[in-house]
């Protein structure tokens, strides 16, 4: 029940925040923060009660008892569609990240939104509810439903509260995601009908669809449908072009959850569905997927360096970092996949902080153009120092979480394909180039003596502090996260490629 409660809690919190808008302009944000904190506490409290040894069990598809949490009711029995939610270590990590970054997103937009603040928070919470559903759904029909649920409010966040080119950016976002959603739906339907032909009864259950037998050609095309749908979301080169526009135009909270969480649904889809459902086709396709990953790493880094818009720079850096995730997933050994998961979490934290910085800069300077910044360390040392920290995380400094992710991916990848590992490692150099030029343009250089700016206050420093501690923890003692993910990743690996 906990899993269902969690989703209902977020939906209800969103509705309540919307309703409270008419009473007070400040109530919605407090409500949103309260509901997210409540959700996080509820989740962690529930997880605490799970016996210790449950965490080391390998989740079995046919035995819900081996999962951490499980919930299932019949929904549309005629087509074998169930309302089935389940949580293993991987979902636990990602749902926790979602709720945590949701809170950070609310804090980051604290006094940015004056137009319809309640509806804003409602959309934020509904997107998060959709994301949580995506991470928990074990029925592909339900998964698709949540996939759409998370996108529509996100579209509204960009379209209503975005910046100067919000109409263009939100439409681009919508078209890319709807097109990929359509592919996903088609692929799911084809897969379900193949299964129905084989077994004589309909089912959309993940566990039933695993191991569906089909001809290699058909398998390839259905796999490709899943793959493209999820790599658009990830995003990887060449499906990434919606991302810089959407990120740049979205309000701060939107960018934070877009980069911090929504991109991870793409990686999650690849890891949970694409590769395990089509093990053979994925093995054949792995070189292409890894080449796209390596291309993303380098292409994203070069374009990040080319940008003059602070937010766009951070957006392209995400393309580069998610390239490591794609590489790790398709290298498909325990080192690389653990690295990909770690990279997802660490990138969520570091990029959320960088987008928050971008939002704070825009709020104070009314521009994102780095050519009009410079020397801001002098005006706002706290902002400068925290930005430096996250720029360093972003360039993969050892001791911070991103390094653990990237290093594990590289180790795993090197055993599979050393040359791609060399190309990806070049990404470590190019990352330094864009991250440091960003610091130079914005925070170093000659300060403008006329400028009067307020530095971060306690609220912002608290959010930054949480993210800093998180990245240090992941960088120096990542074992708890690795241990939680270990059983499920092993079971996926065992069921996946030969």
């Amino acid at each position, binding site marked *: 029940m906990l899993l269902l409660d969690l989703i209902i809690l977020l939906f209800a919190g969103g509705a309540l925040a919307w309703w409270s808008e008419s009473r007070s302009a400040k109530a919605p944000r407090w409500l949103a923060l309260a509901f997210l904190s409540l959700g996080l506490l509820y989740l962690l409290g529930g997880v605490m009660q799970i016996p210790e040894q449950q965490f080391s069990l390998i989740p079995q598809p046919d035995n819900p008892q081996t999962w951490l949490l499980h919930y299932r009711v019949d929904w549309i029995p005629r087509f074998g569609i169930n309302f089935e939610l389940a949580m293993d270590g991987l979902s636990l990590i990602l749902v926790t990240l979602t709720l945590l970054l949701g809170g950070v997103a609310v804090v980051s937009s604290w006094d940015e939104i004056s137009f319809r603040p309640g509806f804003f928070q409602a959309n934020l919470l509904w997107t998060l509810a959709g994301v949580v559903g995506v991470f928990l759904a074990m029925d592909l029909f339900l998964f698709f439903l949540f996939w759409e649920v998370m996108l529509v409010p996100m579209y509204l966040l960009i379209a209503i509260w975005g910046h100067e080119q919000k109409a263009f950016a939100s439409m681009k976002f919508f078209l890319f995601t709807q097109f990929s959603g359509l592919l996903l739906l088609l692929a799911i339907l084809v897969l379900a009908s193949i299964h129905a032909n084989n077994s004589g009864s309909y089912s959309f259950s993940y566990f039933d669809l695993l191991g569906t037998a089909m001809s290699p050609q058909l398998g390839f095309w259905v796999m490709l449908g899943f793959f493209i749908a999820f790599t658009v979301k990830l995003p990887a*080169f*060449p499906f*990434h*072009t919606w991302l*810089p526009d959407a990120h740049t135009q979205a309000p701060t909270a939107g960018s934070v959850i877009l980069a911090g969480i929504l991109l991870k649904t793409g990686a999650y889809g690849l890891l949970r569905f694409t590769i395990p459902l089509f093990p053979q086709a994925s093995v054949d396709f792995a070189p292409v997927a890894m080449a796209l990953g390596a291309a993303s790493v380098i*292409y994203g880094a*070069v*374009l990040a*360096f*080319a*940008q003059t818009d602070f937010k766009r720079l951070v957006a392209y850096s995400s393309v580069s970092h998610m390239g490591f995730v794609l590489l790790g997933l398709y290298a498909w*050994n*325990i*080192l690389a996949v*653990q*690295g990909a998961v770690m990279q997802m979490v660490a990138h969520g934290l570091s990029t959320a902080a960088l987008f928050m910085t971008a939002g704070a800069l825009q709020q104070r300077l009314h521009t994102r153009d780095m050519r009009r910044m410079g*020397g801001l*360390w*002098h005006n706002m*040392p*706290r902002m400068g*120092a925290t930005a430096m920290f996250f720029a*360093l995380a972003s360039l993969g*400094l*050892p*001791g911070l979480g991103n390094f*653990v992710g990237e*290093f*594990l991916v*590289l*180790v795993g990848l*090197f*055993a599979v394909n*050393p040359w791609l*590992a*060399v190309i990806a*490692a*070049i990404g*470590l*150099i190019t990352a*330094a*180039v864009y991250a*440091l*030029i960003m610091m*130079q343009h914005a*925070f*170093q*250089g*000659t*300060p403008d003596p006329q400028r009067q700016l307020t530095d971060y206050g306690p609220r912002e420093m608290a959010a930054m502090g949480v993210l800093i501690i998180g990245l240090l923890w992941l960088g*120096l*003692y*990542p*074992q708890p996260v*690795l241990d939680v993910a*270990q059983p499920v990743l092993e079971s996926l690996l065992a069921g996946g490629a030969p």
Partner: protein
Amino acid sequence: MLDFLWLIPLLPLASAALLMVTAGSLPRPLIAACGAGSVGLAALCVLLTGLSWAHDPVPRQMELWTWMQVGTLRPTIGFYLDGLTLVMMSVITGVGFLIHLYSTEFMEEDESLSRYFAYMNLFVAAMLILVMADNLLFLYLGWEGVGLCSYLLVGFWYRDPVNGAAARKAFVVTRIGDTAMALGLLLLFTELGTLDIQQLAELAQGKWQPGDTTIVLATALLLGGAVGKSAQLPLHTWLPDAMAGPTPVSALIHAATMVTAGVYLIARNHELFLLAPPTLLAVAVLGLLTLLLAAFTALNQHDIKRILAYSTISQIGYMFLGLGVGAWSAGIFHLVTHAFFKALLFLAAGAVIHCLHHEHNIFRMGGLRTRLPVAFWSFLIGSAALAALPFTSGFYSKDQILLAAYQWPQIGPWLWAGGLLGALLTAIYSFRLVFIVFFGEAQTEPDRQPGWRMALPLSILCVASIVGGWISLPLAEALPATQSGHPAAAVEWISIAIPVIGVSLAYLIFLGRQLDLSALVNSGLGQRLHQFWYSGWRMDALYNWLWVRPYQFTARLLKDEPVDLAYNGVVHTSVALHHLLSNLQTGRMRWYASTMVGGLIVLLAVLARAG
């Protein structure tokens, strides 16, 4: 004390954390006390550690916790203590403390004192981790950490974009080497399944014969990291620019400690390098080329700090030469004596700059012998050691390297001759500096004298630069012995005579002016050669043309997202189709009727054909 090894890096780390969190809100004397005191305490701990280790000098390993465990990868947060570690720790905390003490006066008036000491302390912590780590991944953490602190401190005065550019150059160029090193780690782990340094050595000896391709490749990648950090060819170009940082930073990071990390890395993994003779040869040849290239450049500089920077590059070249010819202990010995006399020279240069309104150009100094006696004596002693004049510390260490080079089979005598040429140039350029800055006519008057916090570290380093050659380092267990045997007495005598000849030449040219080279210097060829060497053999221009420009060009080319052209193509096609179809909808009955009839005819024709 051996059980509290972790306390040594923790002390400066805690101080750095405290200074960062308080962000300058502490009273300034407390900031200075914290910054210098933490390193002083760490030095004390190193001393105690050394004393208790000396009772039972066997290597010790100490694991704090498992960093991460995935599959067979299990790097730890753990330390390894042997003679080599102890030597490095002593240099880092000992010389480091003196430089911190000096900084409390040098940086007294800087508004960002807290930030300065936070970075400096963080550096000391990272450098200690680098030398104490028991596995290559934890070492890599320290390795990147010192690179970060170097970046932060070179760009410390961030308001001048020139400093920012120098800092970025330092970070990015060294990161090229670091990435090679990371690939070396990947290769070693993939082949041997561990990153623990001692296990690697053991497993490698069991797995490979000397000269096997894989180990040659792996060591070459590690060497890539070493040449980046230690500013050797071809990645040395960042170090002269790094002089943009405050002078004590140059003394600590860019002379005494961080830039010698590459030497440490090779010495620490000597078992691996011994399995790869081609890599060792590359180490020796790169060292020789670098020491000559940098010596020629140093001879042509005007900026006091750039002269010292090139001389650092050159001296590390000697260390590489020593490692390459198997004189492991001599390489480390030179590292130690160099730390003393180069820190001394930088700090003395800092005193000159500090007392002379931030003047860097040696031709605007002169006659400072009587005006700044402390700086003069420091410089004189430091330069004597740098030039390897007999009975100074630099003499003993450099002599050992040159003799080992001479005895190296095949190209040994050539390496020796090259090293001697370098020694001659070193003597000339270091005393050129002394004669121009401290003798002759005064150009600029000093406006102050160094106080005790600057004078005391200088005096201690003066003593160390002289007697440093007489200490014996506990390296016998940690590093293989240099092959013994004495070459002919003539070889010894030449090694002693060369620096003396160099100093005499410098005297004749720059002070006594008995030797007039102005005709040679002012000739067309002389001018061009001077410019060529002044620019550091045009390496910066070459790299600009080879790497920087093409990268910037590519970035500009791609800036507006060429991939979008494809998607926009879809959009434009749909819009065009939309216009085409909407134009059909004209609202004129006659047009509709005629198209209907036309369509009917076509349809009938098709059906008739089909039928």
